[in-house]
């Protein structure tokens, strides 16, 4: 039995982002279809546009030969790219998530499990600061909040980043699926009132892809 590494490198975090881009591209149609039912049919296009721009930025940086100096730099660039290329609700929300993630992580090139957890929590708090979502509002928060909680619980129990990412993904999936019966109170779906019930929230679906990408990158 090999011991799982206890730190996460900046390369793994870059891999996370690339995997997230790949999953978003793969699931673009599905995300848009979810948004067709209770929104405005653009969540897949929005996320794909944003993550394509992020990937282009990563490519360009790699092409230049000099990768990001620090986790803070990396995620500041990612956050700003999302903010300036996505628009809609998801642009500022995911953008803020990554901006705050980077600020929390700081000028480092590796993070331990607790540090990564703190960065995730900072990102989550950023989403709440912008969007004021609470649990049960039927938003991406409903997947992200339990995922970050699960990360923390796993780390507190001595879990590696790989363990924590697996736990976070499982929690995100549960949170995502729990959005189905809810009547939306935030975002466009709230305009539908009762008619929003019975459908999965598109943002919760893309957030779950974010945690699947993380688990894939960290071997969780």
């Amino acid at each position: 039995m090999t011991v799982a590494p206890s730190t996460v490198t900046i390369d793994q975090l870059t891999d996370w982002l690339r995997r997230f881009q790949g999953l978003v591209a793969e699931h673009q149609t599905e995300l848009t279809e979810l948004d067709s039912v209770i929104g405005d049919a653009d969540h897949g296009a929005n996320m794909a546009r944003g993550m394509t721009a992020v990937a282009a930025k990563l490519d360009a940086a790699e092409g230049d030969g000099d990768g990001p100096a620090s986790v803070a730099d990396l995620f500041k660039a990612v956050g700003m790219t999302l903010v300036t290329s996505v628009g809609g609700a998801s642009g500022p929300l995911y953008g803020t998530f990554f901006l705050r993630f980077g600020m929390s992580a700081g000028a480092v090139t590796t993070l331990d499990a607790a540090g990564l957890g703190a960065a995730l929590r900072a990102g989550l708090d950023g989403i709440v600061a912008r969007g004021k979502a609470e649990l049960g509002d039927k938003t991406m928060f409903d997947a992200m909040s339990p995922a970050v909680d699960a990360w923390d619980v796993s780390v507190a129990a001595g879990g590696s980043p790989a363990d924590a990412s697996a736990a976070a993904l499982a929690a995100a999936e549960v949170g995502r699926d729990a959005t189905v019966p809810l009547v939306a109170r935030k975002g466009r779906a709230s305009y539908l009132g009762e008619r929003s019930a019975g459908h999965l929230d598109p943002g919760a679906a893309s957030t779950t892809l974010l945690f699947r990408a993380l688990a894939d990158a960290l071997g969780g």
Partner: protein
Amino acid sequence: MKKFINDASAVLADSLKGVAAAHPELRVDLENRVIYRGEATRPGKVALISGGGSGHEPLHGGFVGTGMLDAACAGEVFTSPTPDQMLAATQAVDAGAGVLHIVKNYTGDVLNFEMAAELAEAEGVRVASVVVNDDVAVEDSTWTAGRRGVGTTVLLEKIVGAAAEEGYDLDAVVELAQRVNANGRSMGVALTSCTVPAAGKPTFDLPEDEMEVGVGIHGEPGRHRVPLASAKEIAAMLVDPIVHDFDAGGLAIVMLNGLGGTPLIELYLMYGEVVPLLEAAGVSIERNLVGNYITSLDMAGCSLTVLKADDELLRLWDAPVVTPGLRWGA
């Protein structure tokens, strides 16, 4: 999907090229996707910016010009523009008297305009915002994202634009904008879904004998699906929720707006049906608009907006306006 497009992901960029070609009197920043007036803001005039997802044309770009907006930021179809676009526009049009952001109440628009305002303030520009939320179709708005901003936006841009042109200062402009928003109510119905180019198929399926009541302008389903009704019955579905939502009596400006796929012959017909119902509710229609002003791509449908007016609002309404979408007095 049957549309005049080259590539679903290039619709906005390609369409803006056409706007630039058609309107040499405007300046179109294709890079930032901002439509500006041809001339710089008159020193001392409060500048007005709006913007939002595309697909609602002529809103907002078609309302840039003398007596209305100074700039409009175009987002992707049904997707709010981004803070950097808004910041560029805000800095470009500021002439020292401050800038009003006219924001329709959607989470995306609100969040992006908020970020832009923070950035602009940091650059030393005085920015104020008004969030339009006039859609009575959204019933339980207290604990939610609130009401959508729809038709009143058009009337607000015209009226507040005239006030800025007249020399109202930023505080007065904000007060007026809030008053217009508070006095406007809208309600919409759809006979068909629209098709978002990137999605490639209709956002929802609607059988031949059904319609959606209480739709916004993003192809979202409405609050209720009901059997297809006659124009007279539909008129009541538009008027009733508005006149029950506020005391609509008195002077008013009324807009019967097409959602994009409904021809003018039907819009006039609907207008003919809503007028007696509004009059019965004590509304005295002083001015009106009938046509496509705030659309939802190719959706067949219409919306009704009632704006309670007074002498000041009517005077500002009648003031000259020279834009692609609204023009009179010059």
